[in-house]
């Protein structure tokens, strides 16, 4: 591994100045071209800003990969209704850990992106829906918004443009389902976070039944750099259909977990090579490309380009680029059981297949993990997952089915082993972060 390869393979943009002492401040952000993209956008016609972002090819970084500019274009104009931008900062998908460090270290990139987006879609009130369990981030968002108001980037007549924008930071209260955009809107309206039937889509009837854009943090935070450095610069990274840079989050049994900002299309093998591989003495067993809701991969997919098309063609989804890597000490039945317990806990209860199905999946999985399963349980798992998948309002149900399908596909033998030997063949102590260091560094 050489420094050259890291320079070639990585492309820090959003994370470029996170190592500065006070990276979250307006002063630090300004030293790195902060609010230059906003200045350029405010000098353009609104529709031209939408077209520019659309032409850049920026796609949603929250999981679905929908073109951001197109989402903006769907907002009906001249309809006489207020328009809203709601930023989804409810980052809760297991494995996903990009928006929280981004907002902690560089909140102004989001605020600047929101100003540009609101100007484009003619919105005068925007919201950041931040998951409540991250108070350090909330503190910095409060401070960044205060600074932005004080500097005249928010409020009335922003920078003499005649454009007004109010920005409200809203803390959620602990519900994974609120990461789903329509549940998020219900939650922001002061209700239980339950998904809405679509259509109507939020672009037509969103917050308070008015046209609303719901975008992920990273999508919006990427906009200022596109406006400032140009769409051609942006498209020079990644592929034609998946252009640009993005944050990859490497976690689990890897030597050097963390955030790696790179052009779309890098492979896990390249990221692991850069990051020092798996922890010493171990090898990759299974991993998720984009959080627990994306079907898992094994070492056979190490060279899959991590962009929307590449991961899709390999049978999974790019999702949130949450690369959770597990080594050979990890019991896949344990991992899937725990994820399924999560989905059962977080199912909002609105749709029967998800509410009941996740409950029964947990019962079966717990039995199998404890060695009390029966051979026919594996087909039953598959059948229940099939009855959840695609049969609920929102993607939580699909997400719950994904680890079941994919783990049965890749590791059916391991499920069978639990059943045949009447117990789990793994020692959980060997998977811990200190399993190896306690042996080799006991003197430390």
């Amino acid at each position: 591994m050489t420094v050259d390869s890291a320079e070639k393979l990585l492309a820090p943009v959003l994370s470029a100045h996170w190592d500065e002492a006070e990276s979250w401040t307006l002063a630090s952000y300004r030293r790195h071209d902060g609010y230059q993209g906003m200045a350029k956008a405010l000098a353009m016609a609104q529709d031209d800003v939408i077209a520019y972002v659309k032409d850049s090819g920026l796609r949603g970084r929250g999981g679905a990969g929908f073109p951001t500019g197109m989402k903006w274009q769907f907002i009906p104009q001249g309809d006489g209704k207020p328009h809203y931008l709601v930023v989804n900062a409810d980052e809760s998908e297991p494995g996903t850990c990009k928006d929280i460090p981004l907002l902690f270290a560089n909140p102004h990139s989001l605020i600047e992106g929101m100003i540009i987006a609101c100007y484009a879609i003619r919105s005068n009130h925007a919201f950041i829906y931040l998951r409540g369990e991250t108070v350090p981030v909330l503190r910095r968002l409060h401070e960044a918004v205060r600074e932005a108001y004080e500097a005249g980037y928010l409020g009335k007549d922003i920078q003499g443009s005649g454009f007004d924008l109010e920005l409200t930071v809203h803390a959620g209260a602990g519900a994974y389902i609120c990461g789903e955009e329509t549940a998020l809107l219900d939650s922001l309206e002061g209700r239980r976070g339950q998904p809405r039937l679509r259509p109507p889509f939020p672009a037509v009837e969103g917050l308070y039944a008015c046209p609303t854009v719901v975008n992920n943090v990273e999508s919006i935070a990427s906009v200022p750099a596109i406006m400032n450095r140009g769409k051609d610069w942006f498209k020079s990274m990644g592929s034609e259909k998946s252009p640009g840079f993005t944050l990859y989050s490497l976690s689990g049994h890897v030597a050097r977990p963390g955030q790696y900002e790179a052009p779309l299309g890098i492979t896990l093998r390249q990221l692991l090579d850069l990051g020092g591989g798996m922890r010493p003495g171990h090898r990759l067993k299974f991993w998720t490309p984009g959080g627990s809701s994306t079907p898992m991969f094994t070492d056979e997919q190490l060279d899959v380009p991590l962009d929307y098309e590449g991961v899709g063609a390999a049978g999974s989804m790019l999702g949130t680029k949450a690369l959770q890597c597990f080594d050979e000490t990890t019991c896949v039945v344990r991992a899937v059981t725990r994820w399924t317990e999560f989905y059962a806990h977080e199912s909002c209860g609105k749709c029967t297949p998800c509410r009941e199905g996740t409950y029964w999946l947990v019962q079966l999985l717990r039995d199998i993990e404890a060695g009390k399963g029966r051979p026919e349980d594996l087909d039953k798992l598959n059948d229940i997952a099939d009855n959840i998948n695609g049969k609920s309002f929102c993607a939580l149900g699909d997400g719950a089915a994904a680890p079941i399908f994919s783990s049965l596909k890749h590791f059916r033998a391991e499920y069978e082993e639990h059943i045949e030997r009447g117990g789990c063949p793994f020692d959980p102590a060997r998977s811990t972060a200190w399993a190896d260091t306690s042996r080799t560094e006991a003197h430390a």
Partner: protein
Amino acid sequence: MTDMAMGATAGVSLGIPQLPAPDFPADARARLEADAKEVIARYPGSRSALLPLLHLVQSEEGYVSRTGIRFCAEMLDLTTAEVTAVATFYTMYRRQPSGDYQVGVCTNTLCAVMGGDQIFDELKQHLGVGNDETTEDGKVTLEHIECNAACDFAPVVMINWEFFDNQTPESAKQLVDDLIAGREVRPTRGAPLCTYKETARILAGFPDERPGAVEASGGAGPASLAGLRLHKGEAPSRVVGQRGGSAADFGDQAPTPSGTPSPAEHPSSHDAPSRTAESDPAHPADPVADNANQEEGE
């Protein structure tokens, strides 16, 4: 019929209309009302202020009591039933008084595998409490939590929703010992700990006014900088790539020692039925538990 008879003998009165919850004392009410109006003014529709207002009443009492629910309902022109429905949906709203410090151990898959399960088990033993239970001195409430978006710092412990990254059983036990002894505890990412009530006030939308709170713990945690440091040629040297190296086959693993509880029996079960108003008569928001405000939890 049998159930009702049993309920009656257990002292639960049925069919008698519930008295309204008591209001906050006048001075607290005036103070909270001013705060609430400030929160409501931030939203085009007043009901949007409900989640922040529930955080606000939690900052007053440490949990969402019937009095808190009544307050939210009055401020937003909702029924107490409407407010209760929302308060019971979200896990961050406590339904009984609990400790000054909420210690949450992530036991979602990645943290659990990396050691979160062991941390949680050892903390339970060390503190002598179970999940969602509070130490006798009222200092620490222990619970398992879901993925908190810090997987590159696993295993993660959250105390009053500040990040304590890369924990071990030993470091976590030291943390709770320090909390109980009243020593200052600093997160790896976040500000020096304040109490649960003070945290709830920030969540209601009131910035942390303590000097140094925003800048505490610096720009980004070490893992957040992993890619940037490599790109700048500042790669740490502690790591040698091992992928593809000596491979241990999972079939060779030693079986779980017989004394170790199977992970399936791990009590951090997430799908235990949530206690609802009906199944949780001690719940202060429960219409049946009329005098719940005076109760001290479990």
